[in-house]
């Protein structure tokens, strides 16, 4: 049986596009939502800590400690997002491998 390489490639191309759409669309949405949530947390925290400092409920050293924590949260959140992106890339690679196997074996 002759193998129609062009048909296989076309089928794979369509499959890869669908896979990319399904895997990364959610990730962009998730990263944007996380970023917005983080920004809102930072704003609220800063406003509250400033008020607590002014009212004498926290010390200046505690206020500064909290600011350090805010910076850490941004760094750790970025590391988490980078890691979750790699997870999606691995899932995408697995998806492509399965797609190729199914497409080629289906046509032979």
């Amino acid at each position, binding site marked *: 049986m002759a193998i129609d390489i062009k048909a296989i490639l076309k089928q794979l191309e369509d499959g890869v596009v669908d896979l990319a759409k399904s895997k990364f669309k959610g990730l962009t949405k998730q990263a944007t939502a996380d970023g917005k949530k983080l920004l809102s947390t930072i704003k609220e925290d800063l406003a509250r800590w400033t008020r*607590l400092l002014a009212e004498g409920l*926290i010390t200046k050293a*505690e206020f500064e400690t909290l600011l350090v*924590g805010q910076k850490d949260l941004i760094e750790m959140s970025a590391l988490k997002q980078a890691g979750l992106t790699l997870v999606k890339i*691995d899932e995408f*690679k697995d998806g492509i*491998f399965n797609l190729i*196997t199914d497409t080629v074996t289906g046509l032979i």
Partner: protein
Amino acid sequence: MIMNQFLKIKRNSGFLLLLFLGITFNNCSPSIAFYDQYAFTQATSLKVDLQNLVQESPTVSFVEAKADIEKINVELKKAYEYSKGRSKNTLSTDQYLILLSDNHLYKTFLKTWNLQGKLSPVGADEISNKIGQLMDQIIQLESGKRKQTH
């Protein structure tokens, strides 16, 4: 003769394509470590221990809490070393490094505690929440990793 060989190659092209793609993709190792139940348990347990330690700071002096602090420092180092020892786990290890390094939240909190003797109750609550949020970043990255299928 040449025609026969050509037909043979054409007939086997599907197999060759599969073989080529199989080799190519099998050689692609994962970009990040798989989920690890022990690492997840370590992180969730550390979150509770760290928050409890911070909650001690308004009632117990830094000097009196030395043993508790040392215990948690050891646990943190163990979690960092375990994370560092796992293949393709740099991002999680970097997260632990933030917790362990000077001039970051945990060590700055200890310095403040040492300096003041005790923390204010409101300050301790706020720091406890923040440390909890930091630990959540470690926990969420671990739980988001792919489960290894055997």
